[in-house]
């Protein structure tokens, strides 16, 4: 039982490291290019990487909208063949709606998901550079 548990924990952490590594290899401009790949494919990239960003506590959020919302409502717009994505979110306990062109919302969801993981990996090498007495000289 212990072995199974250990194997599954190990498996999960390898899978997690795998997604970060996969994201690190990507060229954001290319994979999130809506004109070249189409909105559906671009959102699929976001859908692949964003759950990992959430798990690691590094998910991006802008103007009160989490990347989860960008992905969810962009997918719904694609399904309904709409050109505008209406994102519903809460700000200070009030329901709000913001509208974005479909291409823009798909691009944003994708870049946010991939960059969150890339930044997470980059940080391992860069964080000490800002510590006085360590990497930061003054």
């Amino acid at each position, binding site marked *: 039982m212990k072995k199974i548990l250990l194997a599954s924990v190990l498996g999960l952490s390898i899978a997690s490291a795998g997604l970060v590594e996969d994201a690190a290899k990507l060229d954001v401009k290319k994979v999130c290019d809506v004109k070249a790949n189409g909105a559906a494919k671009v959102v699929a990239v976001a859908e692949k990487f964003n759950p990992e960003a959430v798990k690691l506590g*590094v998910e991006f*959020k*802008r103007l009160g909208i989490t990347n989860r919302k960008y992905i969810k409502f962009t997918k719904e717009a694609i399904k309904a063949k709409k050109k505008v994505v209406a994102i519903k979110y809460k700000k200070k306990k009030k329901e709000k709606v913001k509208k974005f062109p479909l291409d823009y919302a798909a691009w944003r969801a994708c870049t946010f998901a991939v960059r969150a993981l890339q930044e997470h990996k980059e940080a391992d090498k860069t*964080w000490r550079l*800002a510590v*006085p*007495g*360590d990497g930061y000289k003054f």
Partner: protein
Amino acid sequence: MKKKIIASLLVGSFALLSASNFSAQADKDRKALQAYFEKKFASEKSAATFFPYSTKEELSKSYKWGIKGDEFRLGSYAFDKIGRAQHDELMDMPPFEDNIDNGKELYEKTPGMKKCFPDPAIAGDYPKFVKGKGVVTLSNAVVACAKANKQKGWKLTKGKTADLEAYFANASKEKGKKVHIVINSKEAAAAYERGKKEYYTQRGYLKLSCATCHVQGAGQRVRNEKLSPLFGHVTHFPVYRLKWQGLGTLERRIKGCNKNQGETPHKPGSTWTKEMLYFMGYMSNGLPVDGPDIRK
């Protein structure tokens, strides 16, 4: 008898030695941080290096120079002349006086609160590392105590918790207490290191670390405000923020900062927040407790 005394002395000194071993890196970090800020705010001459975008006029008119040690307990008001003048005017009639009174009442009337905190002058002793629980902030301890005594409506960020903390901070200030965070185990040192890493990690779509604003950026002007320094950050909490129109705890402020970085903020009771506050607390070790206070 003699043997017993020698043995207990030996055990005591080993305990002290090992405690200082666990905090050796943190002490080194804190000293380097203090040295950095003292150099940064030493004189107008040093300002040329640290404030490349400020004009000579701004540097001489709106900054106070030669800031040392304890003065950093005031945060940005240690060096921001204009901000300090406004702060001092507001302090003629502090808006948090009622909160302190309310905090005192809560301390005396809430069942179990006196038992949990026999001495109210404890604001500088938190966060603590508790074996089996990890880092416990003052807000965590207060809310846990209220919960254990079946009290409702205690949040980590504001309201009754913030009021009680205002009373604790005021009692600590009146007793001349200093920030005294302890790292006394391998696990505590590891929690400190994780908090430190998160503090210096660039995050969110703006790719800002906490240090971008509060270490490297401290003292620089953003619109008409000067950014506050990490050294001395925790000394004056809870604070009455004009933006909030009320009192808030460190957890509340951290959540706001995290949001401003462009990231889904970590929850106030999360391990991330607690370890971040543990690191921040240690960085102000030795500074006098100066809360509650007012901020914009």
